C-alpha cells in the first residue's frame, strides 16, 4: 500500500512539474514603482518631512515679511513683499535692556567663548582618552567610570560648587571661567570618544613607537595625532554645536555684557518691553541657529557619527 501511494504522488508531482514549466512563473510579477506600498511609504515619510521642515520654513518666511503683513496674514503664507530689514535690525539694532546694538554683540561673544573652549576641551579630553587607552595606571579606569557616571548627573547639582571654585580662583564671570566650565562638561563624552578611538588603533603601532624610544608626548603628537584627524573633526563638530547652543552655563557663568548669543536671543525675544516685532525675532532666531545649521549641513555624515558616538555611551 505504502509503495503504491508514494508512486502515485510521485507521478502526480511529475505532471504538475511539467504543467508548471509550460505555464511559466506563478504569481504576479512585482511592480517596481508606484505600488500601494511605495505610495504609503513615501507618503508617510513626506508628511513627516513636512512636519520637520515647517518650523524652518515659518522662520524664514516670517523674517522676510514686514510687521503689517504679519499682522494681516497667516504665518505660513509666503511674503508678498520681501524685506531684509528685520535681519539688519536683528543683527545691529535689537534691544536687550539698555543695550541696543543687536545680536552682533552676542555673536562675537559666542565666538570668543566657543573658539578657546573647543580647543581647550578637545585637547584636554584627547590627552585623557589617550592616557586611558594606551598608558593605563592603577585607578585610571575607576576615575573614568566616575567621569562617565557623572555625565548623567544633572548640571544643577554641580553648578553651585563650580561657582564657588571659580570664585576662589578669581575667574567667576570671566571668559576663562566659562572655558573651564565647558571643558569640564565636555569631558565625559569627549574622553569616551577619544579613548575608544585610540583603543581601536592597532596596539602594535604604540608598541613599535615605544621600542623606537618615543615617550608619552612624542607618541601623542607624532604617531597618534596624525592618525586621528577624523575623530578630531567629529569632536569639533560635537563641541562647536554643543557650546554654541549652550544656554544654562552662559546665564550662570557670564555677565550681561559677555552673554553668549543664545542668552541674548532669549532676552531680545522674551523681553517684556516694547512692541513685539515677530519678524525681527525670527531673523534673530535664524541668525543664532545659523552656525550649528551650517556645521550640520556641511559636515553631514560626520555629524551623525559624532552624535552617535556621543550618544552611545560605554
Amino acid at each position, binding site marked *: 500500500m505504502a509503495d503504491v501511494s508514494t508512486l502515485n504522488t510521485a507521478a502526480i508531482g511529475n505532471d504538475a512539474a511539467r504543467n508548471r514549466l509550460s505555464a511559466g512563473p506563478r504569481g504576479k510579477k512585482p511592480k517596481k514603482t508606484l505600488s500601494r506600498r511605495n505610495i504609503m511609504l513615501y507618503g508617510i515619510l513626506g508628511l513627516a518631512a513636512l512636519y520637520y521642515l515647517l518650523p524652518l520654513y515659518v522662520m524664514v518666511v516670517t523674517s522676510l515679511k514686514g510687521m503689517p503683513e504679519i499682522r494681516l496674514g497667516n504665518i505660513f503664507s509666503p511674503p508678498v513683499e520681501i524685506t531684509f530689514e528685520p535681519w539688519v535690525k536683528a543683527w545691529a539694532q535689537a534691544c536687550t535692556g539698555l543695550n541696543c546694538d543687536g545680536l552682533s554683540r552676542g555673536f562675537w561673544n559666542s565666538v570668543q567663548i566657543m573658539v578657546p573652549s573647543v580647543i581647550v576641551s578637545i585637547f584636554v579630553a584627547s590627552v585623557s582618552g589617550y592616557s586611558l587607552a594606551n598608558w593605563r595606571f592603577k585607578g585610571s579606569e575607576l576615575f573614568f567610570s566616575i567621569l562617565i557616571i557623572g555625565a548623567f548627573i544633572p548640571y544643577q547639582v554641580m553648578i553651585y560648587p563650580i561657582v564657588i571654585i571659580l570664585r576662589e580662583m578669581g575667574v567667576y564671570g570671566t571668559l576663562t571661567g566659562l572655558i573651564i566650565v565647558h571643558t569640564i562638561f565636555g569631558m565625559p563624552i569627549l574622553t569616551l570618544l577619544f579613548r575608544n578611538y585610540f583603543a581601536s588603533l*592597532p596596539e*602594535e*603601532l604604540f*608598541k*613599535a*613607537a*615605544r*621600542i*623606537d*624610544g*618615543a615617550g608619552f608626548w*612624542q607618541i601623542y603628537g*607624532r*604617531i597618534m595625532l*596624525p*592618525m586621528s584627524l577624523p575623530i578630531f573633526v567629529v569632536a569639533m563638530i560635537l563641541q562647536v554645536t554643543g557650546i554654541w547652543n549652550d544656554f544654562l552655563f552662559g546665564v550662570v557663568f557670564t555677565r550681561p555684557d559677555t552673554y553668549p548669543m543664545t542668552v541674548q536671543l532669549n532676552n531680545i525675544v522674551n523681553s517684556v518691553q516694547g512692541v513685539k516685532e515677530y519678524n525681527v525675532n525670527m531673523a534673530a532666531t535664524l541668525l543664532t541657529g545659523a552656525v550649528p545649521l551650517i556645521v550640520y549641513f556641511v559636515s553631514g555624515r560626520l555629524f551623525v557619527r559624532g552624535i552617535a558616538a556621543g550618544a552611545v555611551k560605554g
Partner: protein
Amino acid sequence: MNVVPINTTRASHSVSVRDLTLSFGSLTVLGNLNLDIHDGEFLVLLGSSGCGKSTLLNCIAGLLEPTEGQIFIKDKNVTWEEPKDRGIGMVFQSYALYPQMTVEGNLSFGLKVAGMAKEEIAKRIARAAEILQIEPLLQRKPAALSGGQRQRVAIGRALVRDVDVFLFDEPLSNLDAKLRSELRVEIKRLHQQLKNTMIYVTHDQIEALTLADRIAIMKSGVIQQLADPITIYNRPNNLFVAGFIGSPSMNFLRGELVEEGGRTVFRTNNVSFSLEGYETSEPLIAGRKVVLGVRPEHIKVDGDLAGEEAHEAVVDIEEPMGADNLIWLKLAGHTISVRVGGARRYAIGAQVRLGFDMTMASLFDAGTEERI
C-alpha cells in the same frame, strides 16, 4: 626546578629570564618561567594562541611589566628598563608601520627620537635598505607597499637600531602562504648574515622547525619542552608536545604494558605490540597505563615490511595529497593514519598489514602524560 646559582656560563647568554611571573589579578599568564638564550641563537617560542608566548616576548621587550622575576639582556638587568634602553628591535605581526610617514621616516623615527646625527642616520638607513633590498621604496608611504614589502620595512626598523637582540612577534602570520615561505627563507638568511640573537614567536610549526636553533614549546604559560627541532620532533617530552608538532599529527593508542613471553609489550584492545627497539629512560613495568605514539610516516605498510611484527588493518578512507598519500585505517579498534608515497593507492575496505617502527615511537604515561 629553580636552578643555576650564578656562574660564569651566564656570560654566553644573550637573554636570560629568571623566575618570571606575570599575572593580571587572579589570572596567571606566565608562571615562574626560566629561559636562557645563547648569543647568536635563533630561538622560537611556539604554541597556540593564549599560551603566553607573545606575553613572554612583550615582557622581554619591556612592553609589559612582570609581576615577579628578573630579565637580563647581555648580562644587564633590564627588568625595569625602558624598552628603548634594552638593546632590542622588534618586528610585529601587523607590521605596525607609522602610516603617515614614508618608509625612510619609519626607519629614522627611532633614531631621530634618540637624537642621532643626520649622517649616521643616513648611513644606517642605507645599510638596512641594502640588506633588505628596499632602496626603491624609501620615499613611499606604507599604504603604497605590498604586505611583503611592509614586513621588510618593519624588519628594517629593527635593523637600523643596530641592536643585539631581535624580537619577532608572529611576523609572517598576515602574509599569504607563498610570501610566507619566501620571507621565512629571508629571515633565515638574515640571521646567518647578522648572527644576532633572535627570538621568534609563532604558532606555525613549519616556521618553528625550519628557522629555529632551539624551539620552546609553550602551553598555559609554561615551557613544555626546550630543545632543537629534531629532538622536539622525534623525542617529544610529553603528550602535548607530541600532539602539537607534526601534521598530520601523531597517532595515539591508549593501552597498558603487559608481560608476554618474558618481555614487556604494549597491549591495546587485546592486540599486543612488541616494544623492541624503543629507547626508554626508565624500566618498563607491566601493568602501567600508557599511551603509544607513532607518527604516520613511521608505520610500514605491506611491501615495506621486512619480516618484523605486523598487524592486520582495514583501509577506512584515503586522502591523496600529491607527494604523499595519507590513508586512515582501523587497527585494533583505533583509527590511525599512515603516510605512504603518493603513487600507492588503496581501495576502501582493503586488508593491509602494518608494522610500527618502535625506534621512532614515543611512549607516555597515561596519567602524567610524560615521556617514559
